[in-house]
């Protein structure tokens, strides 16, 4: 449900950078979204269509790169992608982890004309 607020924020960033670059049209935005943020890609696209209507970004697409939940074992230093219901180091079985990925939420780049 927080996709509207998030899409509004990212759309503001997109327009700001498009205007700065004196772009005539915005074709797409490349986003990196961490799995742990709970952001739903389809909803972002849906709101983007609403928000971009009658702007230079009308009809723009969102290319979303999902970033999985990743961890590093505090015992042996092994990095890995976590599995559902299984937060254990695949190398040593350690359960104390440092979260190293999955919380990203940023605009990587935009494609303009």
């Amino acid at each position, binding site marked *: *449900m*927080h996709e*509207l*607020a*998030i899409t509004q*924020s*990212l759309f*503001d*960033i*997109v327009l700001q*950078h*498009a205007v700065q*670059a004196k*772009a005539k049209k915005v074709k797409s935005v490349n*986003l990196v979204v*961490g799995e*742990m*943020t*709970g952001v739903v890609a389809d909803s972002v696209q849906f709101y983007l269509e609403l928000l971009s209507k009658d702007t230079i970004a009308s009809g723009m697409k969102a290319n979303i790169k999902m970033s999985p*939940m990743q*961890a590093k074992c*505090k015992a042996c230093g092994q990095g890995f992608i976590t599995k*559902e*219901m299984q*937060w254990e180091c695949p190398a040593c079985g350690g*359960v*104390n*982890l*440092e*979260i190293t990925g*999955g*919380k990203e*939420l*940023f*605009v*990587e*780049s*935009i*494609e*303009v*004309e």
Partner: protein
Amino acid sequence: MEIKVLKNIMGVNDQVAAKNREMLLWSKVFTINIMASPGAGKTSTVLKTIKALKGIKVGVIEGDISSTIDAETVAKTGVPVVQINTGGECHLDANMIQNALNNMPLDEINVLMIENVGNLVCPADFKLGESLKVLIASVPEGDDKPYKYPGMFTAVDVIILNKIDLLPYVKFNMAAFTRAVKGINGKAVIFCISCTTGEGVNAWARWLKKQIKGT
């Protein structure tokens, strides 16, 4: 043509949150962002905490999609309350708090408790300007919640497990819950309480008082 942007989408909210934090610290107000699923016992915990913090002046911001039920309940204790109705938004954001702070007598309070909208997903992403993030989990929700909402469970400083009076009646594996929480959030402090029997509330309040004094 591709233009590199590399900008955090939450940047604008984070900036407003930083302003709120500055204002709250300047007013010497210790602020707690309380998050939980609906029905976990946020308002009950707020009420119990106000009582246990006697001598410390508390203010409360109530966040709900609609209604003023919680604000009215809290106002009966005599503390200043501001209700935010988000009108559909599933979380509080820094902007809403900035507006609410204009109606909160900051010079008359030492602690501000912000009761977020009942939701284990969205509030984790929105900083408000708080000193402490608290998650209230409850026994009937089950011990698997850390696995289902890792974003929330890793975002918080404190996890209060409420409704422990129900442990004899509900299948809840305390060791599994603690292991999951500690595994991904080593810094989190866990308190087990029951707002019904009052068990554990004083331990939480004692710890909280220390944090408030430390600021």
